[in-house]
């Protein structure tokens, strides 16, 4: 049948967005290299290499038909703004972030290429669960407490946050459940416990571990991903309601018991009451966003260093101050575009495992962005979560690129499947 649409017909030129990213990169990094009055070649080199890497990634993705190119392009733009901001904050931090970017990019390319090989083999739900538990126990045993959260493992000069990788394992875990719920069915005599309730117990154990480590942000993120995936893939409204109520009550109790959480809620409700103490961070963030007006104060003319943790959690406020609220909104829109591409990949997949994997990964990035931007703008209480691709942090960058690589691999498999189907039609 010749009435089937040929795939490459009438696509908007994907090179235009690429050129725009390159333009932004070059402009931002040139500006930055002149900021201190003297021309700093080093900064321009970073900018130039980023531009080269953007194009290189794009060419590799197109040449080897590795799927949707727009994922990497959107992330490239987000990274442009992110890297530029980090360099503006401090050359030291910015350079480290650039190194993480390079590592992340390689992880991205490697994952998108080799995932198809391991895809069908590793599906066992217990594999993922036990891996998560091992990482948790490892953190509890040899973990270090930084900023009140016992969430870092230090090996010599490198420290990383296992929770960033546990959240990816969790998505695999839920995907494994959704594609094969019967694997969790427990048989006691001739009665069997429904797999859903076993899942609930397992998930709450994981949440418990996060609370033990004081990683409330990631616990919340995991919980949201869990509820959304179960809602989308299974019809179980009572189950979801029960979970939500249980977790909600646990959270309320936790806020009453733990002073640490009480501080977070107080400074969310009225940070100006304790503007120099508990509310300092959030009020400074709000001041910064306000000072940015529409187009920003201009790169280098804001005062981001008044905000504690500005390179990690509050990077969004710094961007809003120097690039204006329009810059901040642009970042939000770009994450929404990422969400859209991710959901599109999810819709194009047939196999329930990869389908819910794509969904879970996309929704993790989306919720994470929502949680941190919401926290920083006093929409919701602040959680210690990072903004993917923008916040400074090795583990954050690497896990974000890992997620991107997995999504890219999955979109590649759709492309291969479609090509296969078209071949079958042509050969009829």
């Amino acid at each position, binding site marked *: *049948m010749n*009435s*089937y*649409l040929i795939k490459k017909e*009438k*696509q*908007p030129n994907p090179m*235009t*967005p690429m050129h*725009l*990213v390159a*333009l*932004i990169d070059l*402009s*931002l990094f040139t*500006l930055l290299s*002149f*900021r201190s*009055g003297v021309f700093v070649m080093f900064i321009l080199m970073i900018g130039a290499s980023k531009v080269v890497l953007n194009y290189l990634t794009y060419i590799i993705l197109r040449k080897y038909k590795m799927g949707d190119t*727009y994922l990497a*392009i*959107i992330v490239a*733009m987000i990274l442009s*703004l992110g890297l530029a901001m980090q360099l503006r904050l401090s050359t030291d931090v910015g350079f480290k972030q650039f190194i993480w970017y390079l590592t992340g990019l390689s992880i991205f390319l490697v994952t998108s290429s080799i995932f198809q090989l391991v895809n069908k083999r590793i599906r066992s739900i217990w594999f993922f669960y036990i891996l998560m538990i091992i990482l948790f126990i490892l953190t509890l045993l040899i973990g270090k407490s930084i900023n009140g959260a016992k969430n870092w493992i230090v090996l010599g000069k490198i420290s990383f946050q296992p929770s960033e990788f546990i959240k990816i394992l969790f998505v695999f875990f839920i995907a494994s459940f959704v*594609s094969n719920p*019967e694997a969790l069915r427990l048989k006691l005599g001739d009665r069997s416990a429904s797999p859903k309730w076993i899942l609930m117990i397992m998930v709450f154990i994981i949440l418990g571990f996060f609370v033990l480590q004081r990683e409330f942000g990631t616990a919340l993120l995991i919980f949201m991903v869990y509820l959304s995936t179960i809602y989308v893939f299974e*019809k179980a409204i009572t189950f979801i309601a029960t979970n939500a109520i249980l977790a909600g009550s646990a959270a309320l109790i936790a806020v009453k018991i733990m002073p640490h959480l009480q501080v977070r809620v107080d400074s969310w409700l009225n940070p100006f009451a304790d503007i120099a103490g508990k509310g300092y961070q959030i009020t400074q963030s709000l001041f910064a966003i306000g000072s940015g007006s529409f*187009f*920003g104060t*201009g*790169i*280098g*003319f804001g005062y981001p260093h008044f905000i504690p943790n500005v390179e990690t959690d509050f990077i969004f406020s710094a961007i809003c101050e120097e*690039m*204006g609220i*329009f*810059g901040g909104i*642009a970042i939000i*829109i*770009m994450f929404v*575009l990422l969400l*859209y591409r991710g959901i*599109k990949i999810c819709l194009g997949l*047939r*196999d*329930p495992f990869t389908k819910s994997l794509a969904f879970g990964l996309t929704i993790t990035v989306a919720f994470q962005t929502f949680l941190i931007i919401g926290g920083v703008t006093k929409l919701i209480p602040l959680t210690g979560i990072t903004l993917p691709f923008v916040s400074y942090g090795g583990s954050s960058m690497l896990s974000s690129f890992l997620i991107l690589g997995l999504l890219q691999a999955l979109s590649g498999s759709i492309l291969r499947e479609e090509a296969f*189907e078209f071949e*079958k*039609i042509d050969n*009829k």
Partner: protein
Amino acid sequence: MYEVIVMATKYILTFIIYLFILKIAKLIYIDIKKMTVWEETKVSNPHLKLLSSIEQTGTNTVTEIFPLKNTQIIIGRSLECEIAISDPHISSQHVQLERISQGFTIKDLGSANGTYINGERLSRPVLLKEDDEISLGITKLVFSEGGKLDE
């Protein structure tokens, strides 16, 4: 000097970022348009419509359309089937559709819960007519010759 340049370029930079967003958004539009065209080509050929199992009222919601491209199509729970449906009440290989000169025949492949055509249990291969309702497990599929666009 730096200050002047920054003041001037911040508007330009914002403009470029939004131009970028616009280009990507245009893609979304083209994507959605392409999907509707793809759907139209799917229904102009023989296909099976998967009915949503949520709506039990008169109007039937079509969740998905499976074009019938090959001469032999096996429907079942296993991922090896041409049409894989994750319904636990469907056998790994439940029914087989075969294209013959007069159209499509449907044959039950010895499934555990049986197959029902328009309410009647399928015992031997039957030729499918337009709007025949095939029930496997709790899933309902409607056969269509295609060629006409509904609505």
